């Protein structure tokens, strides 16, 4: 944080709202990891817990938004303070979406545990989730440190997640063509992978917010897209 304000209560308010945001980030990170783990270990209780915890994340989002609105109303922030508050509101929104995806993963996990597992898919998904979780952690670190370079790095790493998703997409397509009984499981797994891919997009958006916070400008060059699935046809051969 830069130099303190003369009115120390202003600093306290700013710190409080950001502390909320960080706590929310922590909850979301945990939700991602737990959701992926529950899928891999076929742990229905853990999945149930992820679904329950999402309510907490949603409440946190409401609170962060309230705090931010209050801060705008009472302190009339300007310049970097204004960007901070705006960023906080957007990031909280992104985090909430990420939390929702994690919850959705957990829901699907509850269904998947009652089906025959599909070889290797769970660990691939966990790896993908782990990588998104790392991105989120780095993005939040970048926010705390006001580190634009790290945020830029996170932004570029989204392409890896996209590539993982591409690979999984192909894999699931193959499975389903091989054996139609896998279709239900694969569909769920595919949606889980898609959710994780979307989480990556939200994390990228967080990273972009950090860059905006630090520099005052949104990164304008087009984000490297790695999701090739919209152009994918039936695998040849």
């Amino acid at each position: 944080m830069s130099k303190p304000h003369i009115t120390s209560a202003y600093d306290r308010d700013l710190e409080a709202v950001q502390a909320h945001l960080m706590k929310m980030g922590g909850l979301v990170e945990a939700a991602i990891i737990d959701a992926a783990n529950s899928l891999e270990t076929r742990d229905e209780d853990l999945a149930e817990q992820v679904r329950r915890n999402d309510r907490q994340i949603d409440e946190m989002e409401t609170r962060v938004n309230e705090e931010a609105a209050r801060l705008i109303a009472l302190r009339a922030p300007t310049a970097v303070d204004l960007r901070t508050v705006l960023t906080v509101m957007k990031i909280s929104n992104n985090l909430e979406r990420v939390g929702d995806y994690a919850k959705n993963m957990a829901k699907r996990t509850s269904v998947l545990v009652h089906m025959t597992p599909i070889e290797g898919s769970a660990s691939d998904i966990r790896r993908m989730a782990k990588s998104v979780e790392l991105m989120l952690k780095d993005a939040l670190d970048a926010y705390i440190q006001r580190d634009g370079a790290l945020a830029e790095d996170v932004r570029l790493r989204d392409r890896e997640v996209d590539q993982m998703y591409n690979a999984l997409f192909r894999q699931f397509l193959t499975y389903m063509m091989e054996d139609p009984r896998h279709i239900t499981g694969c569909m769920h797994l595919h949606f889980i992978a898609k959710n994780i891919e979307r989480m990556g997009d939200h994390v990228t958006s967080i990273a972009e917010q950090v860059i905006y916070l630090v520099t005052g400008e949104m990164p304008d060059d087009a984000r490297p897209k790695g999701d090739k699935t919209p152009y994918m046809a039936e695998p040849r051969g």
Partner: protein
Amino acid sequence: MNDMRIVERDVETREIKIRGDKVQVFYGDNHAIKDVDIEIQDKTVTAFIGPSGCGKSTFLRCLNRMNDTIEGCRVEGEITLDEEDIYNKQVDPVQLRAKVGMVFQKPNPFPKSIYDNVAYGPRIHGLASNKADLDVIVEKSLRRGAIWDEVKDRLDAPGTGLSGGQQQRLCIARAVATEPEVLLMDEPCSALDPIATAQVEELIDELRTNYSVVIVTHSMQQAARVSQKTAFFHLGNLVEYNETGEIFTNPKDPRTESYITGRIG
């Protein structure tokens, strides 16, 4: 979830310091304050806002009976400090004002040395038995006024030679030197530049730990920044009195909403 709850907003639980009950103030035939009921909490900054002539300053001045000095001013209803009626015949206003200190719109240090400015109150109230005690009181008050570091090397310099913001903090130090329980501030920052204003606001926030502070201000932003509770006065009526965040994000009365959003209403 409550661990993250910001403590200072938790005002409803504080004990009540000043209570106004159906307070009416008349200036001659002019009915300046109408039926004001209010409960002002201890260790809280309460802001009075409202358009000019809405009676907020008048009401503030009722709280330490500064209105007594105005010809033709009449107060009805009951105002209590710690459940004692301050308009009781037995109450000497001088004694009341020692408990309820006041800081004015324009910084008004006495044309004396900085030391004498602060020492004046304790002297007339006999709070110090000797010079050493008085020195202690002066230093403590100047520290509370957040001005000690700036003036400690020139306590003999005239108080009028300080800058506006320093003068106002000196006046606050002077007010706290008599160990009041309530501090009334009548637009304390209207004559100050933004930096000095911020310093005074910071000081007000610190004073909250020891005093009940009531501040009248024309600047809604200032009320928003420094207070925990805000009272909106309009045409002599207390229109809305609530937690400051509520007033500024979600006012209940349309008049309050119009005023704080700057609409014609």
